[in-house]
């Protein structure tokens, strides 16, 4: 198998292009996806290859073009709806949650909705409060959706291809900060299955559970802990709904200590759910209370010095890891 290093934006483009070559029902719609090649250049050259019929520049009307995608999916097309960022998905959220996630149940299975909603989620550098939302857990709250939040170029490509082939509505999170990040991706076609977590670093003393771009922070934390003689395992969930419960419990049963690192406010968060799940399923395996590092409880301020405090940092993660290792809160 030949491997090369490509960026996440190219991995995403390859995933979409390969699937569009494979299946004529697949199309891409969103703001700037055509002539501009995508706000983050994820669809570079795609309109040239597939034409304006299949790579469609939409006006700024997220509710409208999300609904168009869902309606088209109801009658057999397989749309990819791109949000420039998921911050703007809020004006389409009625369509995603009240229509896409529920149409199958309300119609008792008459509707099948093979649609992907994708775009950047989470904070980047100093975007201010309205452009720094992290909504992965927010969408993961809703039954009827699949929620995918990968980190590496390999996983981005393999999971986006699986998402496009899936017959359910999939909400697919990328990150503005990592579109340029490069990693190994095979030349040959491959898929990464939805609903499967992956151990990205094996360890024995502590399980760090994370997803999306916080994988990279978690790996740094694990490296720093290793210098202290602590062997941390890093479990990348990759999919939030459905959760790979088996992988979570397996890792925890091995290390007996858990630290969750999430870019979410702690109240009503996915990490809080994970914590409940673990303690209710395998309480006896735990040697310490579960640690949770979250975004602090404030809308994101603009200034660099404040943003750094709000987001999970290596310093806060290490502090939390030490508390978990000491078995105290």
């Amino acid at each position: 198998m030949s491997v090369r290093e490509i960026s996440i934006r190219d991995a995403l483009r390859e995933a979409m292009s390969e699937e569009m070559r494979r299946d004529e029902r697949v199309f891409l719609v969103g703001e700037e996806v055509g002539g501009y090649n995508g706000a983050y250049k994820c669809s570079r050259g795609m309109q040239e290859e597939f034409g304006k019929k299949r790579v469609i520049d939409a006006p700024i009307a997220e509710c409208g073009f999300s609904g168009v995608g869902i309606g088209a999916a109801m009658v057999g097309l397989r749309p990819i709806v791109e949000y420039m960022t998921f911050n703007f998905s809020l004006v389409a959220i009625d369509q995603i949650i009240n229509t896409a996630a529920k149409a199958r149940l309300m119609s008792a299975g008459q509707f099948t909705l093979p649609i992907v909603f994708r775009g950047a989620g989470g904070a980047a550098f100093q975007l201010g409060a309205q452009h720094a939302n992290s909504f992965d857990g927010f969408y993961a709250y809703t039954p009827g959706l699949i929620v995918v939040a990968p980190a590496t170029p390999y996983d981005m490509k393999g999971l986006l291809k699986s998402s496009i082939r899936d017959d359910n509505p999939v909400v697919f999170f990328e990150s503005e900060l990592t579109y340029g990040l490069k990693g190994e991706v095979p030349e040959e076609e491959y898929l990464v299955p939805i609903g499967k977590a992956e151990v990205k670093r094996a360890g024995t003393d502590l399980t760090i559970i994370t997803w999306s771009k916080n994988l990279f922070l978690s790996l740094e934390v694990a490296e720093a802990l290793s210098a202290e003689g602590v062997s941390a395992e890093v479990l990348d969930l990759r999919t939030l709904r459905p959760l790979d419960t088996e992988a979570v419990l397996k890792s925890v049963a091995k290390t007996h200590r858990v630290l969750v690192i999430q870019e979410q406010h702690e109240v009503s968060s996915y990490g809080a759910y994970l914590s409940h799940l673990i303690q209710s399923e395998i309480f006896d395996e735990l040697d310490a209370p579960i640690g949770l590092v979250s975004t602090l409880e404030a809308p994101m301020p603009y200034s660099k010095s404040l943003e750094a405090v709000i987001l999970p940092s290596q310093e806060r993660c290490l502090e939390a890891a030490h508390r978990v290792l000491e078995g105290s809160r």
Partner: protein
Amino acid sequence: MDQELITDLYRQMLRIRRFEEEAARLYTERKIGGFLHLYIGEEAVAVGAASVMEPQDYVMTAYRCHGHYLARGGSAREGMAELLGKETGCAKGRGGSMHFYDLEKRFMGGWGIVGAQVPLAAGIAFAQNYTDSDAVTLCYLGDGAINIGAFHEGLALSALWRLPVVYVIENNHFAMGTPLEKTAPIDDLSLRALGYPMARDTVDGHDIFAVRSTMHTAIRRAREKKLPTLIEAKTYRYRGHSMADPAKYRTAEEVDQWKARDPIKTLGEKLESLGMTAAKSRIDSEVEAEIQDAVEFAESSAMPDPATALDYVLV
């Protein structure tokens, strides 16, 4: 005038009327839960439109959906069973009054958030262009939907992308309890089409032949020219917004004025004037039998098995 057509239009309108009168009765007997929004009074719009559609065409609507479902050929049995939350319902008891579906008949629902069905209909129409199909999508909405964003975004995209869709505002003059003059500074709601722009028309929704003619023109425009139309059908619901609404915001005189022009009564009188009294009586009793059969079917059907509560979430 074509007698077969007149008798069929009469039958279809009467089916809806009697279906809903029975639904109202079952609701007061607490056999139907949730909300029940009745279409009584507005039947000429759904039946007139359905009578000029082709089998390949799609229909989408909001939560006042029983009439559109029945007019499109939906089964009274399965509709009534849905209202009673039965496994034999048109959505196996998962949808309820606001969420009827019959994909085989291309009846696409049945949506509960005001205006949200407008972009969905645009999406179905988009898919027809994408696949070179000549099917037209007909999308109903109420006068209460003409201010919400989804309506405007759906219309904007329909005009921009030249989608084969016909939007029908069923103007029954009240958004729940708020009269139209308090929600829009226009009398002719088709004026909303101007800015996108798209073709528009206004029709007397109590005149089923006018409805047919208006719909026919718009559907042909969609099918042949791939252009959308916004139609206002002026109509009236005789009942409240839902069964919970005593409709005290309007006068009995106003209701009576509309009832005097009731489309079912009007067409029934036409049948009699054409010397078709016997045919009318036969339809009356056939419809009655169909609806009573539907009620019996619904009442005797099984509830969904509790073990299936998590079915139909994902594929």
